[in-house]
């Protein structure tokens, strides 16, 4: 059942999800949605890793995915903590309005 799906289908799905995530990062200006799209891109990369892991019958890809999941969890925790902190000083979730560091 599993072997009937060629590995290239999974790779194509991963590429499509990555491109959708990148498009979302460009199109939306809301910080929270941008973080969500970054998570989606990471997940697309995870899918590609696992497709190659399945194709090459090696467990290394799964270890990589494990590490990426840990990094994604830390990234989203710190990103959202920074966002809440930022919101105390200036209520804005639009990236175009967050320009206090602009000279």
């Amino acid at each position, binding site marked *: 059942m*599993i072997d*009937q*799906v060629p590995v*290239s*289908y*999974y*790779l*194509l*799905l991963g*590429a*499509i*999800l*990555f*491109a*959708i*995530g*990148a*498009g*979302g990062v460009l*199109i*939306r200006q809301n910080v*929270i*949605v941008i973080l*969500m*799209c970054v*998570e*989606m891109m990471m*997940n697309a990369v*995870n*899918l*590609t890793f*696992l497709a190659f*892991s399945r194709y*090459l*019958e*090696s*467990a*290394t890809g*799964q*270890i990589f*995915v*494990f*590490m990426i*999941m*840990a*990094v*994604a*969890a*830390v990234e*989203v*925790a*710190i990103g*959202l*903590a920074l*966002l*809440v*902190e930022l919101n*105390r000083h200036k209520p804005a*979730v*639009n990236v175009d309005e967050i320009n206090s560091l602009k000279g």
Partner: protein
Amino acid sequence: MFGQTLFFILAAIAIGAALGVIFNKNLVHSALCLLLNFGVLAVLFVMLNAQFLGIVQVLVYAGAIVVLFLFVVMLLGAELGERVTTWLTLRNIIFVGLSLVLLTFVGTAVFENFIYGAKGNFTPEAVQQVGQVQLVGTVLFTDYVLSFQMVGVLLSVGVIGVIWLAQHLEKGKMGREKSQ
């Protein structure tokens, strides 16, 4: 045949949910679409002989990250942060074109330089015999034990950083209260 049909249904749901994350005006709906996307990907992970990571995907992404997103959206009251009247602006069309170019590049890179390597011993038969978690655990705690420890360090740094940020935030609030 059944596997392919299942794959196409799941792929369609995943792509639809990914588009839903971008094109929903309400952030709560975006977060729920993200949850659907992660759930579908967990099923795909199981189909790819990675049952352990499918469970971890549900626990970490769907369980922790989406809840964190929903929590922050509710906390900031930012459900309708962006007033979007139309998606069909010149800027957005250019960005969609750019992501299509990216898709072409990624697709070409993957298919032109397809990796042909020596096959390992992580076959479905071996997984059935020994157990998936045991096989992944053996590799994780022998060949990759250093990177496993590094992930522990990274998580500690993340926890300390978030605690510091929260403490800082509390101090700022107290300072404001005193000045009032």
